[in-house]
């Protein structure tokens, strides 16, 4: 039985609601990070409303704080958000080939880890109205959380800000650890990446490398080596979707 666009939209809102609540809390720490590097609350909210990317925004803020060039920022954004390229490729298979360009351009605005996860899980072909429903709650959740974080970061006691600042790292851990458990290669890569990152940042001779460059170089080197040494077979793609 074909569902109406309205039903698809309602289902999107329903499935997007828990995502929006999670975003509200997590993007709060992103707002604090934005404030810490000197962005105004409006700029922090604008960044979240236009980017909808946790790690990408966080990495971007790090580079902005360092006064990086626009090109460096573009490369950094490209690398930290490269996973969305994979997700969008996968999502394009989930759409009806007849789906008009305008719908493809609109759902492309908010392909996040979580929205990708629920979109790919709907049975059969994906109706863009489902994504619009999820986006209708997830987009404001992400932007408002960032705004509140940037505004309230000033009001809250130092202890609370210190505690909330770790929230984003907690989220990163929650993204990388479950696949590390399922896939030994990812597990080793995660441990190796942390060790290499610590090594590079603690060797004083290498201090000429900025934190942003460190992330770019290590990512390209480690992920590149892993791609050559441990090419991913077809069946392992599911682990990526779960992330």
């Amino acid at each position: 039985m074909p569902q109406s666009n309205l039903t698809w939209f309602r289902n999107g809102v329903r499935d997007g609601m828990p995502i929006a609540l999670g975003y509200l809390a997590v993007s709060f720490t992103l707002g604090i990070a934005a404030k810490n590097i000197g962005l105004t609350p409006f700029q922090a909210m604008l960044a979240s409303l236009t980017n909808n990317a946790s790690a990408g925004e966080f990495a971007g803020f790090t580079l902005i704080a360092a006064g990086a060039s626009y090109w460096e920022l573009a490369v950094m954004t490209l690398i930290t958000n490269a996973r969305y390229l994979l997700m969008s490729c996968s999502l394009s298979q989930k759409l009806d080939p007849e789906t008009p360009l305008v719908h493809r351009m609109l759902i492309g605005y908010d392909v996040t880890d979580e929205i990708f996860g629920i979109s790919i899980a709907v049975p059969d072909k994906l109706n863009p109205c489902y994504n619009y429903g999820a986006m209708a709650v997830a987009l404001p959740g992400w932007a408002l959380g960032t705004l509140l974080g940037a505004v309230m970061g000033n009001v809250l006691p130092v202890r609370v800000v210190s505690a909330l600042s770790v929230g984003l790292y907690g989220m990163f851990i929650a993204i990388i650890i479950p696949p590390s458990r399922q896939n030994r290669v990812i597990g080793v890569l995660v441990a190796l990446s942390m060790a290499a990152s610590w090594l590079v940042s603690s060797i004083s001779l290498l201090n000429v490398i900025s934190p942003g460059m460190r992330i770019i170089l290590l990512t390209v080197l480690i992920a590149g080596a892993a791609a050559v040494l441990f090419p991913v077979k077809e069946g392992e793609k599911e682990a990526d979707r779960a992330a």
Partner: protein
Amino acid sequence: MQHNPYLYILVMAGVTYLIRVLPLTLIRKEIKNVTLRSFLFYVPYVTLAVMTFPSILSATGSVWSALLALVVGIVLAWRGGSLFQVAVSACVVVFVSELFLC
């Protein structure tokens, strides 16, 4: 900041949107190149790991509270804790441990 923050945000938003929308609009077939696909598969894990450590150690008021949050977060995520649970638990661990440490 000598650069314009709005231009910074525009660069980030533009690149991010292109990454998301180009595959949806242009590529209708899956990427066939195994090495490229594998690289893209590993990228998020490596990037997030590099960004988490050792930066997390300087994110809070004490190295030890952050280290504790890292360990608790890893254990919780390993046991199947959700994104929300792990993030909130890390915050609670830092808050409570810093009552004693700082």
